[in-house]
């Protein structure tokens, strides 16, 4: 089990290219995912059956399916139907990176929807009722009271999901996108040395994940500065916020779905 520093150094430029692709992919998906998730979360709990059921179906399908299948689905499935054609859709599905963004967004957004939904549900009903009693418009109740609080409640789970997702991008080479893992693997197939490139890539991911973790912790501290004293609620939520767990529903002990 040898590590070859010369090879590692030599492969740095390619690895940095790959790292850049990984970051670009992850950032695009996280942004898009959040954008989609908030309306979806609202739709989930809406009183219109069509909206609620469609949103539920979206979450069930895209959360329950492993990311790799979704990537294949978009790249090979839609790619086969639209790829050969001219025009916008053809260009979209011919591009492996864009297919990856679409596939991962479908998956990631379904988790974030559940996290946002959990956050919204954790907002104490009393606050919402008080706001309504004060005559505040429903739209403002949502945007200025429920959503900001939901963000606070769901933040830990959201941070976990972002980090887990960033690591999950490593499989994207199955649809030909050259990310950090793909670069490492290419070096391995060329040199037959598995350890040097894979360990180097692992180190890059580790640094990236930790930077994310620290950055998100800062955001958390900034949002929750006033809650430093109120540890108990934060702890109860933290117990349930684990691997890809959406935020808990209010009573302790209910399984996170």
């Amino acid at each position, binding site marked *: 089990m040898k590590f070859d520093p010369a090879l590692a150094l030599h492969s740095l430029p390619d690895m940095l290219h790959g790292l850049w692709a990984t970051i670009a992919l992850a950032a695009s998906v996280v942004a898009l995912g959040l954008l989609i998730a908030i309306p979806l979360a609202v739709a989930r709990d809406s009183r219109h059956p069509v909206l609620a059921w469609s949103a539920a179906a979206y979450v069930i399908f895209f959360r329950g399916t492993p990311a790799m299948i979704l990537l294949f689905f978009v790249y090979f499935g839609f790619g086969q139907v639209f*790829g*050969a054609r001219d025009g916008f859709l053809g260009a979209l599905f*011919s591009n*492996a990176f864009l297919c990856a963004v679409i596939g991962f967004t479908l998956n990631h957004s379904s988790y974030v929807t559940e996290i946002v939904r959990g956050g919204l549900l954790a907002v104490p009903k009393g606050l919402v009722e008080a706001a309504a009693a004060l005559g505040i418009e429903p739209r403002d109740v949502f945007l200025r009271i429920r959503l900001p609080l939901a963000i606070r409640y769901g933040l830990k789970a959201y941070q976990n999901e972002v980090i887990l997702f960033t690591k999950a991008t490593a499989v994207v080479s199955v649809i*030909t996108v*050259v990310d950090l893992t793909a670069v490492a*693997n290419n070096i391995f*197939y060329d040199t*037959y040395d*598995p350890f040097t490139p894979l360990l180097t890539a692992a180190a890059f991911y580790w640094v990236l994940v930790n930077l994310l973790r620290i950055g998100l912790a800062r955001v958390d501290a900034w949002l929750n500065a006033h809650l430093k004293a109120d540890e108990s609620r934060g702890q109860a939520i933290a117990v349930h916020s684990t691997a890809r767990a959406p935020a808990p529903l209010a009573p302790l002990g209910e399984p996170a779905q």
Partner: protein
Amino acid sequence: MKKTLVAFAIAAFLPTFTARADKLTFTARADKLTFGNEGVYPPFSMVDASGKLTGFEPELAREMCKRMDAECDIVVMDFKALIPSLLQGKLDGVVSQITPTPERVGKVLFSRILLQNLYSFVVPVNSNYAFTKEGLKGVKVGLTRGGAPAKYMVDAFGDAIVPVWYDNQDQIKLEMLNGRVDMTFGARVNWRLELLDKPEGKGWKMPDEAFWLGDPKTPEDRRGLSWIVRPGDEKLLERMNAALTSIIEDCTYTKLRSQFIQFSILPAEAHCLKPSG
């Protein structure tokens, strides 16, 4: 509660405990040989709808094992995994054709040559590429991970081309047909039989220039591909070579080959070919 726990533990651990040794390891037993084959390199190897590995190379390998009086297991894995797995001892040999590139010659032992299969570009029929760095700038080339043609393309054209990486030839073919890659660089026999001779291949052509990616000093009639074993396994290689030579000499090679490929691919089988006409 205890009963549930025990039941759960049994259900959960049962797969682990009953896993046969060969599910967890590829341990090479003294009496059994494990060979690796790509499995997706038609017409030389393919896996049919029932899951059976077939094609010229697996059939040749099975015949070889019969003559070696050895019990063989042929394992299918992506081409890119074959040589690393061989070097790590997961396989005793690779029975997919390997080009003797300078990088490989130092790391593995090559058998006698088994077939000739040079490499060419496969491009759209209406295209007019100049095969230079400038001529291929920005062109998306489908390549197989770990393959000799892939390494050649990356070394020769570097950043000019956009390599798109796949695990096997079938994947590249699909992507060429749906327009996601512009061209490929691969084995002539394969692309002729699997694409150009088929109806879907009418939009493609293969320029005549054929490349040999092994040692340029090799005389033309000896520019062939072989199977490989690890350095140190000379004894095994001798047995394999002996069996393979006998297969070629008594024309069993030709018989097997003609099930999949209708023309000769090895000078040494000349004496088996019926005169044309």
